[in-house]
């Protein structure tokens, strides 16, 4: 387990801090393709292996900033989509990465897309267990959430999201769209993909976080939009 570097300006900020920043390392799943044949066609097999190797290439850093009312999860000074390597682009999609706001009073996330914002009000509760583990010097509790979805073959499926949160850092935020626990999420895991906190900065000063003024649509409207021109 990588050492988490905690930079506390004042110890009392743990309780009374006004704002904070967390750097999470996004760790993609390493897919083993070496001894497997991905297609009967040799050209296709080579292309697939080449792409998987690109996806296995590396981790990337993400940032969460927050105050008492809102958080914003993003990649600072990020490249344009067209400038990204395909491997990283795919990892970001599979790791559900999009710049995302969380508004405590709405208990909803707002995901930034190019022309609009997608509002997703979470109706699923976390299940908190007694299982704990230490991340650096912090005792973290395990919480899980099961998400149901339709596959591309239109079958029902589900995934388990596992979060390790620290009740001693009383902010209900976390990476991507996962929030709402009684403490900051220091580690998030699903399907072998991980977001792991590397650095936390708590500050007595307030940070202003404002949603950009764009048209807001629901998750259902967004799903309908992207399926309009697509059939599996």
């Amino acid at each position, binding site marked *: 387990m990588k050492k988490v570097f905690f930079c506390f300006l004042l110890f009392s900020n743990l309780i009374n801090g006004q704002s904070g920043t967390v750097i999470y390392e996004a760790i993609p*799943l390493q*897919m*083993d*393709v070496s001894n*497997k044949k*991905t*297609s009967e*066609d040799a*050209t*296709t*097999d080579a*292309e*697939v292996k080449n*792409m*998987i190797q690109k996806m296995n290439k590396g981790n990337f850093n993400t940032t969460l900033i927050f105050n008492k009312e809102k958080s914003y999860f993003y990649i600072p000074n990020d490249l344009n989509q067209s400038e990204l390597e*395909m491997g990283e*682009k*795919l990892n970001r*999609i*599979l790791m*559900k990465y999009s710049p995302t706001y969380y508004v405590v009073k709405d208990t909803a996330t707002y995901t930034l897309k190019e022309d609009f914002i997608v509002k997703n009000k979470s109706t699923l509760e976390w299940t908190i267990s007694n299982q704990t583990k230490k991340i650096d010097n912090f005792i973290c509790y395990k919480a899980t959430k099961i998400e149901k*979805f*339709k*596959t*591309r*073959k*239109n*079958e029902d*499926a589900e*995934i388990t999201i596992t979060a390790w949160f620290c009740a001693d850092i009383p902010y209900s935020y976390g990476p991507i769209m996962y929030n709402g626990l009684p403490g900051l999420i220091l580690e998030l895991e699903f*399907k*072998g*993909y991980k977001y792991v906190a590397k650095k936390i900065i708590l500050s007595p000063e307030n940070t202003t976080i404002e949603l950009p003024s764009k048209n807001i649509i629901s998750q259902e409207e*967004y*799903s309908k939009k*992207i*399926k309009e021109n*697509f059939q*599996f």
Partner: protein
Amino acid sequence: MKKTLFSAVALVAFSFAGMANEVKQEVKTIEITKPKKIEVVKKKDCFLIVSALMDFIESQIGPMDQDTAISVNDNLMATCEGNN
């Protein structure tokens, strides 16, 4: 004497005139060179590649939800067709 001279001059003149009317045939040389190597470009079957890649990813991480699958598919197809 004069008659003979006239006849000779006339003969020579007609001969030149006759030669001038002949069709001049140009000689063309055709050089047979080695035939150029024909380049055969086999375009990738993007549909096949993207399908195989998505199947492989799903074999590793489990099924993708529809929104994720559409994004992955669109990005892969765009890249594959762009490189074709």
